[in-house]
Structures are given as structure tokens and as C-alpha cells.
């Protein structure tokens, strides 16, 4: 009995050790950046750098655009991937493996390669849309695909898609109604987590926005790093806070309308 106590104890200590190590690994750079951003004035800690950032209309402009791209990416992603994943679960299980493979491609194709092929393909007639924001959002949707698709698919796995669909059908519902009133609300938590990741990716994404020449946060920050010392650090912290705040809002909106989260848990067992 003594031995097991020691063992259990040991296990606990190690669990704590790894957890604290993980937390340090994650937060130390953040804290360092934060402290650095407070040193804009010599020998005193101040929020001067933050004032500069908020007074910089370029920052507001670029960051707002990034938020817009993020939101559009989420909407487009949901509209494309929810019906796709649903259809595959319901009717085309033989396509599951190939489609899963395709959704993982953004992991193995470097962004720089992807953006060059985009520019090549879409900068000549009849596909002259390289300047359109449509191309940027489409590209972001592709980038976020591995996260969005697998989040949605996980959500669908947790509910009995087939039976819920059939119950809806026998009550007279068509496909649109089933998708939007039965399936979507029941995978809301899963969609939120996909949206969460997509949003973070879009906010931090540099290469696509830069090469497709669109206003966005990351290219602006890159530009600023070459000009200034403290402001980019402040901006990093601000963007971090804003991103989390935005995700909090998404979360809030998502949970606002009914017992979605609990019901999904209930649907899961």
C-alpha cells in the first residue's frame, strides 16, 4: 500500500512538472515581450508604446481587415465544409479517406509555393481575379481547411447523423432544413473550435496577404518591426489580446441561442 501511495504521488509530481514546464514554455516569451513593450521610455515602465499603436490609424486599418478576412473565412469554411462532411458521413463513406487526405494538403504544401501557384493561375484571363479579395478569402479557406474540416467531422461523429436526418425527413423536412436546423446547431461547439483556429491562423498569416497585396495585420507588423522597436512588441500583445477577445465574442454568440453545448454532450453518448 505504501508503494502505491509513493507511485501515485510520484505520478502527480511529474504531471505537475510537465504542466508547469508547458506553461512556462508558452507564457515566458509572452511575458518577455510584454515587459519589453513597456520600456519605450527610458528607465520607466510605461504604456507609451501602446498609445502609439492605438493612435496609429494604419494599425487599426490593417487589423480590422484581418478580422474581416477571418470572419469571412469562417463563414465560407462553414458553408463549404459542413455540407461536405455531412454528405460524406451520410451518403459517400467511400470518399472519406480521400477527402481527409485532401483536407490535410495545406500541411504539406508550403504557403509560399501555394501563393505563387495562385498568382500564376489567377493572373491571366479568363481567371483574372488575383486582385479580388475573393481570391484571398478562398486561399485562407484552404489554409484553414485541415482545422475546420476535422473539427466539423469530429462534431458530426459525436451525433447520430443518419438517424437525426431520417427523423427530420420523416417529419417532412428537406435537406436545407435538416442541415441548418438539425445538424448545424448540434455541431455548434465543434464548429466554434474550428472557427477559433481558423481565426487565429488568418490573423497571424503573413505570406498570402503580402503576395496578394491585401491589407492585413501580419504584413503591417512585419513592416513595423523594421522601423521600430517597442511598438511591434506592444502590437503583438494587443493583437494577442484582441484575437482572444474576438474568439470570446464568437464563443458568446455561438452559445447565446439555446442549450447547444449541453445538448451536444447529451447527443454524444
Amino acid at each position, binding site marked *: 500500500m505504501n508503494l502505491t501511495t509513493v507511485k501515485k504521488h510520484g505520478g502527480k509530481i511529474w504531471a505537475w512538472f510537465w504542466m508547469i514546464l508547458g506553461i512556462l514554455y508558452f507564457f515566458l516569451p509572452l511575458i518577455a515581450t510584454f515587459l519589453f513593450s513597456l520600456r519605450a521610455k527610458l528607465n520607466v515602465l510605461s504604456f507609451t508604446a501602446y498609445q502609439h499603436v492605438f493612435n496609429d490609424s494604419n494599425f487599426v486599418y490593417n487589423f480590422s481587415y484581418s478580422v474581416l478576412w477571418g470572419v469571412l473565412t469562417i463563414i465560407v469554411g462553414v458553408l463549404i465544409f459542413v455540407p461536405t462532411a455531412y454528405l460524406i458521413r451520410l451518403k459517400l463513406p467511400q470518399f472519406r479517406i480521400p477527402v481527409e487526405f485532401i483536407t490535410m494538403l495545406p500541411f504539406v504544401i508550403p504557403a509560399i509555393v501555394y501563393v505563387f501557384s495562385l498568382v500564376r493561375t489567377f493572373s491571366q484571363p479568363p481567371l483574372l481575379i488575383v486582385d479580388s479579395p475573393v481570391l484571398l478569402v478562398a486561399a485562407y479557406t484552404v489554409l484553414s481547411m485541415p482545422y475546420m474540416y476535422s473539427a466539423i467531422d469530429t462534431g458530426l461523429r459525436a451525433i447520430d447523423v443518419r438517424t*437525426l436526418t431520417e427523423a427530420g*425527413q420523416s*417529419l417532412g*423536412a428537406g435537406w436545407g432544413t435538416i442541415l441548418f436546423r*438539425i445538424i448545424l446547431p448540434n455541431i455548434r461547439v465543434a464548429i466554434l473550435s474550428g472557427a477559433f483556429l481558423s481565426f487565429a491562423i488568418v490573423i497571424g498569416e503573413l505570406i498570402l496577404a503580402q503576395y496578394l497585396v491585401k491589407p492585413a495585420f501580419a504584413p503591417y507588423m512585419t513592416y513595423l518591426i523594421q522601423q521600430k522597436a517597442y511598438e511591434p512588441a506592444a502590437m503583438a500583445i494587443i493583437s494577442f489580446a484582441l484575437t482572444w477577445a474576438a474568439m470570446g465574442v464568437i464563443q458568446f454568440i455561438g452559445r447565446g441561442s439555446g442549450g447547444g453545448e449541453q*445538448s451536444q454532450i447529451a447527443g454524444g453518448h
Partner: protein
Amino acid sequence: MTHLALSRISKDFGGATVVQDFNLDVKKGEFISFLGPSGCGKTTTLRMIAGFETPTTGQIIMDDVEITNKAPNQRNVGMIFQSYALFPNMTVAQNIGFGLQIRRDSKEAIKQRVDEMLTLINLEKHANKYPYQLSGGQQQRVSLARALANRPQVLLLDEPLSALDAKIRVQLRSEIRAIQKALDITAIFVTHDQEEALSISDRIVVMYEGKVEQIGTPFEVYNFPETRFVANFVGSLNTASAEVTDPAKGLLNVGGVQFVTASEIASRKKGEAIRISIRPERFSFLSEHKKDNVLDCVIENITFLGSVVRVQVKIGGASFNMDTFNNPFLELPKIGAKEQVTCSKNAVLVLDE
């Protein structure tokens, strides 16, 4: 007078025939059960009526309209699933009102109908709860109300009680039957549980390996099984092989012992091999009342089943079960004891193979 007709229905899944030449006429307000072992095609047949599967051949006609190839949401059928299939994101009231909303009924009409249904299933107090807050039995009642709210032409139930525990199962079973009778709605009920089918149905369709074995009232199916499968599957019937020894007198040789039967065997040849069946409750100890067959036996086993005691006896070369009602004064023989049992000649049924 036929309300729902399945004629010559069959269904293949990639070459395997799962339902074969299925014929059934259902009258309005009838309660029909599909009874058979798992995998015999009950669900597939039900799903063809619901429109989730299309028959490979054959026709389905409801109220004189052919619906064989109609989409499920174009048919007016109510479906109850084993897993309840309530929409987890909707409250009880929203679940029940869902179909009415699809039909674009007015808000007041929906509310009125939902309240009516809540009263019917006795869950008025739970209108605003979510499905996960209800017990299994309550969830299944909500799903019943949801299906009935639309006033379907036929109610289809696929093993609706299998996920519930024994007590609730029996209770909900009679509740379903009572509601079905009160609303005079046609129902088709799939089950693999013979007791369930016998207790709830107007008629039972006994199925085996995709084919209909027998269609009849519970009384007919239980007392006059037409095939060996039905005899074995419905109730716990004894079957044994026998040899005709005197067709005119109805004499048989069963494992070296002579039996007399009231079944028609005059057309059989002497020496022909047949199969007979005898219900366990048709046997009794000789001490009670002497009948046509008096048989020496050895007690092999005794099982206490609550209201019934099942005694396994060996008569000649064959084993039979005998059921006798339990009572506190029952004097049971010991295992291995030599006894005599008796049964009337009309208890000895000859089966069509």
C-alpha cells in the same frame, strides 16, 4: 378497405436478397408487428415503407396512392427509432412542434397541437426541458408525440422499446397500444421479442431470412404455427422428429414412444418422417388429469421461472419442456425421478417443413 398494401416487395443489397416476395395488406387502425430474429429483414421492410430504402421490385400503396418511389419527406408516415432520435438542440415542445413548423402551421395551431400531444404522453411539465434531461422512457414518449403530431397515415416503430429496461418496456408498450387504439392510427411495430409481439399486436408477421413465414393473429401464430421456424421462434415450443406408424389412427413413433395426434396425417405414408411440436403448457403430470397420450418419462431438469415452473422431461429418446403453474403447494418431483406425463392428441401438432 386496404389502407396500406405491400405487394411482392423484395430488396437486394449488392446481390444479397434481404427481403423476398413480401406481401401484406394492412387495414386502417390495425396494429401489425414484424417479428423475427435479428437480420431477417424487418428493419429493411419498415424502411421501405418509410421511404428510406427503395424496393428492388414490388409496390407499396397507401390509401390507393402508389408511394413506392416517393421521398420520405413526401410521405405522411411517422417514424419511431430505437435510439429515440430526438433533436438534442430543441426542447421537448420544439421537438414535437417541428413537423408542424415544416408544414407552416400557424403559431397558435402549433402550440395547441403540441399541448394536446404533451397531455397525451403525460409530459406537460417537461415541455421546456431538453432531451438529455429526460429518462429513456420519457424520451421515447416525446418521440411518439413528435411522430403523432403530424397526424401520419401510418406509424412505424423500429424496436422502440429495446433500449429501455424491462419494467419501463412493459409499461410503455401498453401505453403505445392504448394511444394507438385511442387515435385509431395504423401502426407497424418491429421487434425480435415474441412476448412483445404477442401482447401488443392485432396481427403478427413472422419473418425469417427475408421471407414471411406466417401472418396471423397472436392466437393463431402461437397456437397454430404453420412452419417449424414459427413453432420454434414463437413461444417456447418443443419440436421433435417423428415417424408415421398408422396414418389412419394418427399414430406416431417419437423416439421409440407411441404418440397419438389429432393433426391430419391420413394422407401420409406409413414410415414417413415428419416433425411434430407440442407447447410446454400442454403437458401435465398424470396425477392431474388423464389425457390421450400417457407417457413414461424421466425428470431431467427443473427451472423456476416465476409464475411458471419449467420441467424438462425425457420421453423415450426425445427431451420435452413442460410448463406448470407455480403455487406454494406444488409438489415437484426430484431430478432423475421416473414419472408419467400426459397430453391430449390435439396438442401434438404436425408441422409443414
